[in-house]
């Protein structure tokens, strides 16, 4: 049966198939009881097949083993949808009056401030009653009439309220006395009551900001105006206005061309209806001769009707004292809707015939979730409804109120986690007549109403905030996938889930979940804006989403997203099939992009590394450069006349990229997109620019404070700054230093370095402790002091003697060998470890060792300290730290052969000395030119301790073939960035106690 039909909806012949039932389902445990699992991570279903069965298990005939065919519940590959543009595009001009709430959510504990504001600025509301009573006895006038008391002082007090004031000023006495007397009667609303209500209000406001269930279902819809699919004329229905109170029916003609993404031609102005409340939800029915549109506001619901030949027209409005929480238009019978109220009642509403209550619950279905949210959906049978709340969903027969059956409940069977709640139920009538979508904070379930309680499919949707919008897109042909789009409010996420089955075969999820673009991400794909404009735009784009709808046509999928400010955005995705690979603009097989490197080491084989082929490098570098460019360009679009598309964009698109990566079209900036966004952003900016700014802050005149002393000699020095500037520029060009001597500036007073403190002159305990802690040995000092380390010391001493004996036995010529061996070890470890991170190893054993060593070498150490200049002391410190893990054989830090030797035999912590393989910093390069001597070795060590971490990183990056770190294009940036990374790495390395754990697998 060929069902391929390139229209937006499925042919009705396919509904025949919906009556089929899969001959086997994937195995599944059915466990009663509340969920036990705790929410763990948001990486849910990746890399999992879930379950597998053999297709022909029942009719297994002998000798058919070759044709054994297994299917899994989650398949690896799905349809590949590639975004056509790198970001969403605004569809309609922004609503200028929309209020944008930005900033931290209100804190309930801020209520005193709110109260103060109220008392201060709305004093007539707050105190008028008492004021009127008291005005006979008190006056603000200075003159003391016989029966009136002057309270002029109060005026002064009130004036000071505008400033931060001292709380112990003496007229506070009076206020306090007055407060004790009349505080409970003076205000119209008792302060405690007001505080309580304010707190409650702020709490609920905060909760509303975090999650607002009112908008569940979404308030945007797309409806074809004719049932015949040939004409693509459609209607986009969305709310607008600053409170989303205006209902718009906007005629749209999508232009579908074979090789171009669809273009939406909007009428100049929509049909608009002003409602008396915010539009919370829209629900669309099927378009036949005419189609129903259900509109929900807090306390009323309305049914509109529209069609190709008739203008949108209101049919009926119902009102209630309870808030409505759901409206759904029947997909089966026109003019039928279901509504649910927060009171727990659900009604079947036949337009112009009245309401029929079919369900009423005063509590939640399965446990007390303390939520008044109720939801209703139709099922395959026009008189059987799904009644859902936060705890689950039940199938209810509207003809017989006692007849109900669980469709879904939060529990073990569905493998829910603790705290999971139903957020949305949706009947997927277009995809499958028996399927329902149920979403929770963590998962999305497909339920088949014929197999209640057990989900036929489950995804972990991995969205950042709760999915409350959903849009189902049926498969356009039998070989294609059904799609579900989930949308969230706060994070504006849209997720694309694909699945097949439910008819002949069990449901299967196809491919991994894909995240679509959200409006808030789009700024990064546009030209950089000036900070204040960027801030404005961010504010505007960060508002929560309010709805989601999508329309598909052949290989294109257009997704519309509404935000709470009434802004509509759309994005188009293209189905990536094999034929499109020839298309230059679209993905080519990614054979060259990433490959798996087969390492022989068991511990590292899942390290995915790219080939170091030139192509790849070229790609990544060019991409990086693109990114860098996109970061750098600043287009001055301050004032309106500027052409929105800058030339830099074209430069970028001209950039040679021989290796077109798979997703590269996304990275490239889009001229049309930029134009559309500039047009969209303009009214927002101009509106703000038009606002007059009132600067409320206090101004202090500084003219008198800073007076430049212009003396006679200045005349002479006048041209000095100029020459200085010139010199500086020249020097900067050459990348040299501007020395003081060359500037002809007056000589600086050279302040001598203060005489180093001699710790021996301060023998008292405190000073010694301070000295120790200055050297970072505070802990060991205390251990020493308290005698906690006696055993360790003895042990260390013993060990040291043993080793000395051993060392004597060893020949000293093995130095070079040990050196190289440590180098190779470092290479094996992909070379992150740097000397400092090793040195500061806070392992217990090494601490003990260091302690022991210090005791032994104590006198020598201090001597060295005393004699050496600052840099030497630093060096010594490093030396000691490096030696800690090893043995203390080197009495003098200048003789390093001992530790080197040991490091080869015992512990590879000194391996960082390998970092001199590649001269990295200029300093080290010059140093290595010196004749090979012992002192060179020490210099190296010292430098390693300073810069050692840089080199391995680079080495590592080279190994990885230009991934992440080696992509930095110019050498001047290299040192900086790699240093930063090495810092991160170094810190990352720090808590690692043993090298062996690296081989963790």
């Amino acid at each position: 049966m060929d069902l391929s039909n390139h229209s937006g909806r499925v042919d009705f012949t396919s509904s025949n198939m919906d009556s089929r039932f899969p001959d086997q389902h994937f195995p599944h445990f059915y466990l009663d009881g509340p969920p036990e699992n705790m929410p763990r991570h948001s990486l849910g279903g990746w890399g999992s097949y879930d379950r597998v069965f053999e297709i022909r298990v029942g009719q297994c005939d002998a000798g058919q083993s070759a044709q054994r065919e297994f299917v899994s519940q989650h398949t690896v590959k799905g349809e590949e949808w590639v975004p056509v543009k790198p970001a969403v595009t605004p569809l309609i001009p922004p609503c200028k009056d929309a209020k944008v709430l930005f900033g931290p959510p209100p804190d309930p504990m801020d209520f005193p401030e709110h109260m103060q504001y109220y008392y201060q600025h709305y004093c007539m509301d707050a105190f008028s009653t008492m004021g009127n009573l008291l005005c006979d006895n008190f006056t603000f006038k200075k003159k003391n009439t016989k029966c009136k008391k002057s309270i002029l002082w109060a005026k002064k007090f009130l004036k000071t309220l505008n400033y931060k004031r001292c709380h112990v000023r003496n007229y506070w006495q009076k206020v306090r006395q007055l407060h004790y007397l009349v505080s409970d009667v003076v205000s119209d609303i008792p302060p405690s009551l007001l505080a309580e209500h304010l707190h409650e209000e702020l709490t609920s406001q905060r909760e509303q900001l975090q999650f607002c269930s009112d908008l569940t279902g979404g308030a945007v819809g797309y409806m074809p105006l004719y049932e015949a699919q040939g004409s693509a004329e459609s209607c986009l229905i969305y709310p607008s206005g600053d409170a989303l109170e205006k209902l718009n029916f906007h005629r749209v003609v999508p232009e579908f061309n074979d090789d171009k993404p669809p273009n939406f031609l909007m009428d100049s102005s929509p049909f608009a209806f002003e409602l008396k409340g915010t539009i919370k939800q829209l629900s669309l029915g099927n378009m036949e001769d005419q189609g129903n549109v259900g509109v929900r506001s807090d306390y009323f619901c309305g049914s509109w009707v529209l069609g190709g030949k008739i203008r949108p027209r209101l049919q009926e409005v119902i009102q209630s004292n309870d808030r409505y929480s759901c409206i759904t238009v029947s997909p089966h019978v026109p003019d039928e809707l279901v509504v649910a109220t927060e009171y727990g009642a659900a009604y079947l509403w036949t337009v112009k015939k009245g309401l029929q209550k079919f369900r009423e619950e005063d509590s939640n279905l399965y446990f007390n979730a303390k939520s008044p949210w109720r939801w209703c959906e139709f099922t395959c049978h026009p008189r059987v409804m799904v009644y859902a709340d936060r705890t689950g969903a039940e199938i209810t027969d509207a003809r017989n109120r006692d007849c109900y059956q669980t469709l879904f409940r939060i529990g073990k069977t569905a493998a829910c986690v603790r705290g999971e709640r139903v957020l949305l139920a949706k009947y997927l009538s277009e995809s499958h007549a028996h399927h329902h979508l149920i979403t929770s904070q963590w998962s999305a379930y497909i339920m088949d109403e014929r197999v209640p309680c057990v989900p036929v499919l489950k995804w972990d949707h991995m969205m950042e905030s709760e999915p409350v919008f959903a849009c189902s897109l049926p498969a356009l042909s039998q070989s294609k996938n059904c799609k579900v789009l989930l949308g969230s409010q706060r994070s504006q996420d849209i997720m694309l889930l694909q699945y097949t089955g439910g008819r002949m075969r069990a449901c299967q999820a196809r491919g991994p979940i894909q995240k679509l673009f959200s409006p808030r991400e789009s700024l990064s794909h546009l030209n950089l804006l000036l900070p204040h404009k960027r801030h404005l735009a961010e504010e505007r784009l960060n508002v929560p989403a309010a709805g989601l709808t999508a329309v598909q046509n052949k290989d294109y999928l257009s997704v519309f997203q509404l935000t709470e400010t009434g802004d509509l955005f759309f994005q188009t995705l293209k189905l990536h099939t094999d034929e499109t690979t020839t298309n230059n603009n679209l993905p080519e097989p990614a054979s060259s992009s990433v490959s798996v490197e087969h390492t022989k080491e068991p511990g590292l084989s899942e390290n995915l590394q790219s080939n170091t082929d030139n192509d790849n490098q070229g790609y990544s570098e060019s991409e990086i450069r693109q990114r860098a460019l996109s970061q750098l360009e600043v287009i001055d679009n301050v004032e309106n006349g500027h052409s929105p598309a800058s030339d830099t964009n074209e430069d970028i698109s001209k950039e040679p990229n021989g290796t077109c990566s798979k997703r590269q079209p996304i990275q490239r900036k889009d001229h049309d997109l930029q134009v559309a966004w500039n047009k969209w952003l303009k009214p927002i900016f101009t509106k703000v620019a038009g606002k007059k700014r009132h600067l409320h802050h206090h101004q202090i005149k500084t003219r008198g404070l800073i007076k430049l002393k212009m003396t006679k000699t200045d005349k002479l020095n006048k041209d000095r700054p100029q020459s200085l500037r010139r010199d500086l520029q020249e020097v900067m060009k050459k990348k040299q230093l501007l020395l003081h001597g060359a500037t002809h500036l007056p000589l600086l007073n050279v302040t001598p370095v203060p005489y180093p403190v001699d710790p021996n002159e301060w023998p008292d305990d405190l000073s010694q402790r301070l000295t120790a802690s200055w050297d970072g040995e505070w802990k060991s000092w205390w251990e020493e002091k308290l005698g906690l380390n006696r055993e360790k010391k003895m042990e260390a001493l013993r060990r040291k003697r043993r080793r000395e004996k051993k060392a004597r036995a060893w020949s000293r010529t093995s130095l070079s060998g040990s050196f190289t061996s440590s180098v190779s070890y470092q290479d094996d470890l992909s070379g992150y470890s740097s000397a400092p991170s090793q040195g500061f190893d806070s392992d217990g054993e090494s601490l003990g060792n260091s302690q022991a060593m210090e005791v032994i070498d104590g006198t020598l150490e201090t001597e060295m300290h005393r004699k050496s200049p600052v840099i030497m002391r630093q060096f010594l410190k490093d030396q000691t730290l490096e030696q800690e893990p090893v043995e203390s054989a080197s009495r003098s830090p200048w003789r390093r052969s001992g530790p080197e030797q040991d490091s080869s035999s015992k512990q590879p912590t000194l391996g960082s000395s390998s970092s001199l393989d590649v001269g990295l910093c200029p300093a080290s390069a010059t140093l290595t030119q010196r004749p090979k001597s012992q002192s060179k070795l020490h210099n190296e060590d010292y430098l390693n301790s300073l810069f050692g971490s840089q080199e391995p990183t680079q080495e590592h990056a080279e190994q990885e073939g230009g991934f992440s770190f080696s992509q930095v294009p110019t050498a001047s940036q290299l040192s900086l960035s790699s240093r930063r990374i090495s810092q991160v790495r170094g810190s990352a390395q720090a808590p690692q106690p043993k090298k062996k754990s690296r081989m963790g697998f």
Partner: protein
Amino acid sequence: MDSQEGIVEKQCAMDDFEDELNIPAADVDSPEEETPNQGRIKEPIHLHLPPKYKGPSRETGFHKSTRNCLKIIRDAMLHHRWQEAAEYFSSYTQTLEDTTVSRQTMACEIIWRLGTEILHHLPNATAVDFNALYNQTKNSGVRNYAKICLEHVFHLLLNGQFDEAKRQLSIAESWRYGKHSAAQPLETKFIRAYCGFLDYLIWCDKRPESGLEAEDVSDNQEMHSYFRQASVTLGEIIRQPGIWDPFVLSYITMLEFYNKEDQALKVLQNYAYNTDFPSNPNAHIYLYQFLKRHKAPQSKLISSLRILHSLVPSHELMLELCVLLMQTWSEKHLEEALRVSMDLLEFSSWKFETKAWKCLLKIILNLKEKHCLEYLKKEWSVRRSLWLAMHFRAYIGRKDSVENVKLLKIKTQVLRLTGEGNIAYFGISLKVRRREQADKA
């Protein structure tokens, strides 16, 4: 009254549930004061915000960078930028060096999940890579051993490495690791079940051609041993409540092969009628097919389908039920058949199904033959409003006339038999007939 009692019971249960769930007790409002409470949904806990996150000061640099790295990987994967994800993932493996136990066990699972998914989407990943990743991850975090084993086996099965899968499964089955193996009971059960399932598949291969004699069969000792293994494990798993369609099918196939029909029937009946099990239409279908295969009496077939009707009135076997009922020729059964077929047609998935309408028409004609049209009248009076709106409105008529004229005719006939008149549907039907006559002429 019953429903009220039910509610009371439910509320009692609810409180227990709440205790168990350990939900923070929010203020309990009286029902009339149900102010907006809907913000109660707790925010999902994300991995990249550590569960006990108490400000940035407590987080080490290592944790911070791994967290950020994970975030980037996650983002790249969600946008299907697999290459970028692979780049970062190569660095992310360092998180295994984390010394915090909880984080490390979590990291193992994350690395398994991310790693496999990324590998799936890299063009040149080989079976060796997958094996290495699965083997290393399952051993590094033993807490997920069973789950990863199972996934590994699935991967091998899907890629046609049946023997290797079998080997891995038997390793996994014998795996014991103290508390850890006991802490993964469901997965362990699944491993055993799949062991049995694969045994069954091997048994299938070894099974001789169906034409051969039973004596020849008895020679094949190896085959019998597979049967024994498979039947024990499969029998064990399908006693647990759940949906076990493939396992039940394979178990029944084996039992039938060895002529153990009684046992098979018992298994099927338990699978279909045990109240601990979820309602699964397939269970009833298997039972019905089994009965049909073994030539059970008609009454038994009807009763088994009746139960299916009460559970899934939209199932396609309802047509068979109608046929069976009609075959008995009893008035009562005919009435029931009418009800069943009308129930069926009320589901939107059957709305345009010609065979269902045909069946209904046949039943009505049967009734008419027996002069029992009052049954139809009775049913019609209940369903009239719905049926007129659902099946016989003008739009549907026009649609039928375009798409399926045969259906239009059947429906017109049904409508006429119900005694309705003066409905737009007739007009459309008339128009079509005239057009057809004109075409013929």
